[in-house]
């Protein structure tokens, strides 16, 4: 009993850490970098669930472009308020718990936009997403891009890049993954990769699409997968 109690306590502190000390403004550009690619996947009137939807920027765009039936889940209260205030259907809560309330294959598309590196159990979330959705789109920062390789190998520093814009002491990322690693995981999980898209850095502060050598060149990657 006391062990469960302390575990619960740990869980709480973990959440507090996640929601209070992370400056999410740093990822604003990165989080939107693959929106164009995600938008091309979405069909008109589709039922779309965005896990970790933040303020609902992507959902709002998909809703206006494709008239989707939208729903989002978000753990951070301020972001949830923002999303609901702009007229989106969003519930406040933890992803794992919220997913247990959803029926099998009840969504056309489930979005995991830049969330699998900040959650405790990415594989479980991916499996659950594939249970509730017909297709799942996953985006993540690619840790094997040349910028990260250079900073780690030659400078001996933990990488800080446009897609990983944090220092080691303030990062929300508790997992790191590369394009190859994710493809490998899809193989292990026997998932079909329906589509891939990658972005690198554009001139200025933005991102631009990348086609060749993504594992070396991409800052962020998108995979559309199904069972």
């Amino acid at each position, binding site marked *: 009993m006391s062990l469960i109690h302390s575990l619960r306590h740990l869980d709480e502190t973990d959440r507090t850490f996640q929601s209070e000390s992370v400056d999410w403004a740093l990822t604003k550009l990165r989080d939107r970098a693959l929106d164009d690619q995600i938008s091309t996947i979405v069909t008109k009137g589709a039922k779309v669930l965005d896990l970790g939807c933040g303020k609902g920027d992507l959902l709002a765009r998909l809703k206006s472009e494709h008239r989707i039936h939208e729903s989002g889940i978000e753990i951070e209260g301020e972001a*949830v308020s923002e999303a609901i205030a702009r007229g989106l259907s969003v519930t406040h809560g933890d992803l794992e718990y919220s997913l247990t309330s959803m029926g099998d294959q009840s969504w056309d598309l489930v979005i995991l936009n830049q969330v699998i590196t900040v959650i405790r159990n990415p594989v479980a979330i991916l499996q659950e997403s594939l249970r509730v959705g017909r297709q799942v789109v996953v985006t993540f920062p690619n840790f094997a891009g040349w910028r990260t390789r250079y900073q780690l190998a030659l400078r001996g520093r933990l990488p800080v890049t446009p897609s990983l814009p944090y220092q080691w002491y303030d990062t929300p990322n508790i997992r790191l993954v590369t394009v190859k690693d994710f493809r490998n995981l899809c193989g292990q999980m026997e998932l079909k990769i329906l589509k891939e898209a990658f972005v690198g850095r554009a001139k200025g502060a933005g991102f631009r699409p990348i086609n060749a050598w993504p594992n070396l060149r991409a800052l962020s990657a998108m995979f559309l997968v199904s069972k």
Partner: protein
Amino acid sequence: MTHRPTSPTAQSDSAGKTVPIPPENNYGPVGQVELQHVTFDGPDHVLNLEGGGSLSPLQVAYETYGELSKSKDNAILVCHALSGDAHAAGYHGHSPDEKPGWWDILIGPGKALDTDRYFVICPNFLGSCYGTTGPTSTDPETEQPYGLSFPFFTIKDMVEVQRWLLDHLGIDTLSAVIGGSMGGMQALQWAISYPERVRGVIPIATTSRMSTQGIALNEVGRQAILSDPKWLEGRYPKDDPPARGLAIARMIGHITYLSEESMHQKFGRRFVNGDGRSFNFSKDFQVESYLHHQGDKFVRRFDANTYLYLSRAMDYFDLETDHGSLEKAFSHCLSSFLVLSFTSDWLFPAQQSAEIVHVLRKLGKEVSYCNIESDQGHDAFLLPGHRMGDLVSGFLERLRKGGTP
């Protein structure tokens, strides 16, 4: 609040319709409002109560704000909480130092319940003591106040009477029903009793069933009244009520409406007198003085028997037992839901709202939920200083746009 264009006699809303300008006066944006009454009588209006017994005739007091559209499709029903009344917004204009209605922060032109757009109705619920038939009303058979001969009633019975009022006003479908605390219970009950008549349901700081802790606190409040020697088995004269008992009940209530944090901020350990400890049992601390003040104020405006009945109606609210399970309770609902709770509310903790949301999601219902950050405790829903209004407004906008394509 958004800027609204004005012209001398009329203004256009975003749909281009011309709506009258609220009269210019000192009564705030909603203007001067009036309590209205309707009496339901005759064989079509006999209220058969869930707990047995019946009531007829039955009077309902209510207020309205804004204009009912020609198609009568812009109505929002506001349900008040335990000690509330029909006066939700604006001013009656009876006294110069009058305070506005209890939800004036939410209701008015340009506010979340925008009276330029919606026709907002707030009825005093069944069994209350502010104009709708309740224990203080005169029993037509004895021509004496009902007192304890008033039949027991439930949240479901309250909703039934509200439905009569809507029928009377010719309103078939509500744009939304909204309420906090006990008002939230009514909102949930509306979604279940009349699924086809409510497009949006906004239960705030509430629960699908009164918690053990909530019942326990209610019981202490009731015992304070019942053990007051002046209670006289409920047959106390109007001018000599069980004031001590009712005041204590209110003091307990008030503690549950605040949070540890908000109490600490408001009063700390400050003394009433700068000299500090008096070493007797008079009101030493400011928090004591505050509670006594609230108790005394309440006695002047509320009825003890009514308090007993209303707290009981709250205790008996249990959708799970009524329907076998929460899933079954909500399975026939057709509305969209916006469920709101407050982080520091320990009377209706967020977990109770999260449970409702979980079940609604399970059933594939459309639901939004936010546990709003606030240190104001349960009372947060009546107070400014957080984002409740924006959320309600966003939800209503979504409903107007048809929700889903």
